[in-house]
């Protein structure tokens, strides 16, 4: 398995109106994505998922840290990236309503990357767009429709077709279905999985829906307040969630059947509010809501601990009370 994307100690801070105070949207995260993986980034709203995604695609420049795409350093904004890279990495946004230009027809929308990257024009452009429409199973009479005449699910399919247009190998999917109904979601997920196989794509899939992740990804990273608190293979995380936050998330999922119920950790209940990323509490950011919080959690940031191969947790419960700060970095180094 080849690493296609490598994120190292990525930080993205946004300045606030107050001088010297930052929104720590993404705070020192590291992960690897392997070829043809579906890597899921999970977390509640404001945890920094989109920021991570946007930094990967180049919408933001990292505050610090590195991003490598196929061993190629891409830790800078889109303006400085070569055109080739813009073709390789694509993104599908969360809201199908805003990600399509309301004043353009489907042909123009899907055609834009084709004219830029493939220099297609006229007839060949139309043909190529039709091919893409077919790929996402939309009829050809959509060519001249405007986004406002199209339903939400189909809009998202068009956004996917646009992402596929320049023949990328890596697609970031930022909550592509969270604005849609489950029945439509099913259809879109199916399509995405099919295309992944057909076109040998790699996905960075962002969502807050753990049940969905369970069904499509092979590796997961769980974010809380800008930090990855736990990551590892999907099966392992679901069968044995390590971090209290992961457990809380899992136990909060409303499920349909007893079988599923059985999979939910029972012993943890959600309490408290998510703090704002501007006032990240000292120590472990989760300690305000954690039922297992100890004194150390309020004082020291927990280190990264690799509890199983490829499975990392950031929690004092697993650090055996050792001093995290120095080990922190070591862990990351050895792991990456």
């Amino acid at each position, binding site marked *: 398995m080849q690493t296609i994307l490598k994120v190292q100690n990525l930080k993205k801070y946004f300045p*606030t*109106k*107050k001088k010297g*105070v930052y929104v720590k949207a993404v705070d020192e995260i590291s992960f690897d994505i392997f070829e043809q993986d579906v890597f899921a980034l999970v977390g509640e709203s404001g945890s920094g998922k989109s920021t991570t995604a946007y930094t990967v695609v180049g919408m933001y420049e990292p505050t610090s840290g590195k991003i490598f795409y196929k061993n190629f350093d891409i830790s800078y904004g889109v303006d400085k990236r070569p055109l080739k890279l813009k073709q390789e990495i694509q993104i599908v946004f969360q809201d199908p309503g805003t990600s399509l230009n309301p004043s353009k027809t489907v042909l123009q929308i899907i055609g834009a990357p084709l004219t830029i990257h493939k220099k297609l024009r006229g007839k060949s452009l139309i043909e190529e767009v039709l091919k893409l429409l077919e790929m996402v199973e939309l009829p050809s009479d959509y060519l001249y429709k405007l986004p406002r005449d199209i339903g939400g699910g189909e809009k998202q399919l068009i956004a996917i077709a646009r992402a596929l247009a320049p023949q990328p190998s890596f697609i970031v999917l930022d909550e592509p279905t969270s604005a849609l109904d489950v029945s439509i979601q099913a259809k879109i997920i199916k399509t995405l999985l099919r295309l992944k196989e057909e076109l040998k794509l790699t996905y960075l899939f962002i969502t807050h829906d753990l049940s969905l992740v369970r069904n499509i990804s092979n590796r997961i990273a769980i974010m809380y307040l800008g930090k990855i608190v736990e990551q590892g293979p999907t099966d392992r995380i679901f069968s044995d969630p390590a971090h209290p936050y992961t457990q809380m998330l899992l136990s909060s999922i409303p499920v349909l059947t007893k079988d599923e119920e059985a999979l939910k950790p029972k012993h943890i209940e959600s309490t408290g509010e998510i703090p704002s990323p*501007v006032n990240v509490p000292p120590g472990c950011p989760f300690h305000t809501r954690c039922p297992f919080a100890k004194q150390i959690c309020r004082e020291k940031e927990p280190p990264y601990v690799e509890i199983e191969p490829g499975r990392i947790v950031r929690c004092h419960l697993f650090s055996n009370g050792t001093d995290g700060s120095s080990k922190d970095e070591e862990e990351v180094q050895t792991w990456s």
Partner: protein
Amino acid sequence: MSMWVYIIKRIIYSIGVLFGVSILIFIISNIVPGDPARIALGPRAPDWAVKRLRKEMNLDKPIVERYFLWLGNLLKGDLGESLRSRRPITKDISEYLPASLEIIALSAFFMATIGINLGRLSARFSDTWLDGVIRIVSYIGIVTPAFVWAILFALIFSYLIPIFPTTGRISPGITPPPRITGSYIIDGLLTGNFKAAFDTLWHIILPALALSMGGAAQAARMTRASMVDNAEKDYILAAKAYGIPYKLIYKKLLLKPSLIAPISIMALDIAALLGNAFLVELVFLYPGFSRYGVEAMLHKDLFAIISVVLIIGVAYTVANVVIDIIIAYLDPRARMGAEQNV
């Protein structure tokens, strides 16, 4: 607290804009043909007198130097001398400005009361005949220029049915009150000269009404629009569902959030009156600031033009700050937003 910081920032920023305004208008009025000194002294004045005046006015210096000389004087509170009235402009303005502000204050009052109440009524009875009538009335209000109203009002209310005085600021037989603020009404009330205060009020009703028609109509429509809009919002539906009386909803719960837009627009309208009222002031022969400005422009009264435009700029700035304060009063998000976000 942070709100005041914000307003102070706004003021500082506006001062920057005013500098820009002064440069702009200084340049415009200085590159035009015609020698202001010659115009001022009249045709028969000998050349040496003109030259002397040019020197006095610094017209013989390069424009950049002139600007800074002017700026220096401005900071000392000296706007220069009007070529037309031959007096310090500060003095002219101290006479015209209060007169204009009186009218503007009254129009603001008319705008707010007429506009908001009509809008409220219209929203409360939306889609009924009353709404239709108000809609048409406000349309006419919006599209009819103030000077047309002025002519009509003058024709009807002081010529055909002479209940209001035609012109001027105070009746010839009445002694204006001694100057304290420059406003006859306020000074009259302060000094117990109620007759003068009332007479002045009587004089400004028609012009103020003419000036307020457009803004009032606009405000009525905006108030109606945002009230009808907000009436469909969940929080109003909730209030209705909880059985809160309609009267209370329309007077309080719905009105307050709906006033932000009309009030902002109204404040700008009112500030604009200072400059745009001249046609109305002309019709009513009212010794207002706007008319002074137009006369200055028509007579190339250099420093007077600059001062007038600058003061209108200041009025805009003030209006904007006032808008901020009013909105902050109406909308807690604006008032406390800054604290919250940090």
